[in-house]
């Protein structure tokens, strides 16, 4: 019988009796989210190599103003301030960005990984004060529902981009011809994963039936959204990876580093 004296209950950053690799998951989230933010920011500021044939990078869709044939309203407006950097992505990326930033899954993940609040379950924190989402600034996370509506519109726009990605220029006629390329498949998988992530949103689940106590009157929508919601974390990561991969593929094709393979 060996006595090991303990003078006080553990408090303080990182103190825990846990023996497992509790730091691995927060570290992986930190690395994954940081890599995405760095890449997305770099790609958004490039303003070039975001289209290739019928493909449009999801970071740049919808292209409201821009130089490519995908632009809705033509080139950059003449009134755009010269000092302000311009890229078609900068006009639209804040909306899906804020949708993810205020997402319930990501909130829980980055509070742990970036703010150590807590670093992991039953692991000591670095600070004593705490407001949570009870007051400013984190009370603003409640705006998630408004970004969700925009994200739903983006899913429709990205699905339309996949349709456009099936029509390749035909040099013989000068028109377009139906076809499927590797890029079409990549953009297609991307929009499916983004839809699974967006349609499994907790706010959407609330709006399609969660807010009601009579579930029997909600039809199938609540059950479907709940099914996707159960895999929200999985789709959050898969869609993050796919949207980054889609941009990278279009970019490498546009730069001539990759050759897009036409399946038919």
């Amino acid at each position, binding site marked *: 019988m060996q006595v090991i004296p*303990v003078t006080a209950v553990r408090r303080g950053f990182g103190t825990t009796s846990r023996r497992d690799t509790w730091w691995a998951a927060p570290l992986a989230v930190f690395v994954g989210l940081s890599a995405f933010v760095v890449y997305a920011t770099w790609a958004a500021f490039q303003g070039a190599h975001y289209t290739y044939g019928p493909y449009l990078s999801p970071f740049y869709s919808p292209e409201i103003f821009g130089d490519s044939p995908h632009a809705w309203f033509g080139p950059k407006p003449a009134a755009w301030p010269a000092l302000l950097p311009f890229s078609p992505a900068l006009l639209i990326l804040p909306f899906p960005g804020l949708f993810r930033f205020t997402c319930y899954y990501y909130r829980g993940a980055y509070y742990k990984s970036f703010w150590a609040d807590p670093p992991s*379950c039953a692991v000591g924190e670095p600070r004593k004060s705490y407001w949570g989402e*009870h007051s400013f600034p984190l*009370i603003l996370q409640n705006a998630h529902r408004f970004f969700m509506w925009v994200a739903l519109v983006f899913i429709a726009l990205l699905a339309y981009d996949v349709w456009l990605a099936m029509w390749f220029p035909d040099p013989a006629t000068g028109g377009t011809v139906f076809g499927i390329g590797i890029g079409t498949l990549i953009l297609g998988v991307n929009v499916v994963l983004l839809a699974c992530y967006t349609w499994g949103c907790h706010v959407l689940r*609330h709006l399609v039936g969660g807010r009601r106590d*009579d579930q029997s009157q909600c039809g199938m929508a609540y059950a479907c959204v709940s099914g996707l919601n159960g895999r929200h974390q999985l789709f959050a990561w898969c869609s993050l990876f796919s949207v980054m991969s889609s941009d990278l593929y279009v970019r490498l094709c546009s730069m001539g580093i990759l050759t897009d393979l036409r399946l038919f």
Partner: protein
Amino acid sequence: MSQATFRIWRSKPGGENGGFIDYTTEISEGMVVLDAVHKIQAEQAQDLACRWNCKAGKCGSCSAEINGTPRLMCMSRLNSLDLTQPVTVEPMRTFPAIKDLVTDVSWNFRVKKGLKKFAPRKPDAPDGTWRMAQKDVDRVQEFRKCIECFLCQDVCHVLRDHEKHDAFIGPRFLTYTAALEMHPLDTADRLPDLKNQNGIGYCNITKCCTKVCPEHIHITDNAIIPLKERVVDRFYDPVMRLLRVFQG
């Protein structure tokens, strides 16, 4: 028979601080941590205090922290633990210690008393009974699986690290409130309480409560977030406010 060492928290008489004491005991196939603690209690430390009852994961009495993770001792099989080093067994850290592995969880019962009670609508039938669809009660059935082991309260960092016991009711009672608020017969309005004195905004959805729940209740996704969204509907969404004005 092989041997394993258990590093068990022992409190000092009259003081809240204590220390770990290592006990080495024989173990056999199928044993759980509670079996080992009972064996140590019987053979080496007759004054070791430990709360337990059913030994089947249904009474919620033997909550403790095993190797730093909040768990039920009776549901922690020894073959799932690394026995090459001492297994630490501590009381729940969020609540005041009474003796050794026993903590004072009475705060939870005081919180429960302060919550709005079930307020059913008038009976649907002359015999005083109600009619409701099975689908309507399915959702709240999940929350009724709770055995009140208070492991979720123990692991919640708002209570554990920030000691917001006066401002936040914790995941157990947010689940309890969800069971009442989402009940198809209930008529009470709990949203102002949730926002104000129950402090639902303090939850930052780290899902630790869900991870430790021995009944596998989806506390965060099915109880807390839906309640948060109802609070947003009522207090933070100007569009919903406008709609309510038009709907009277």
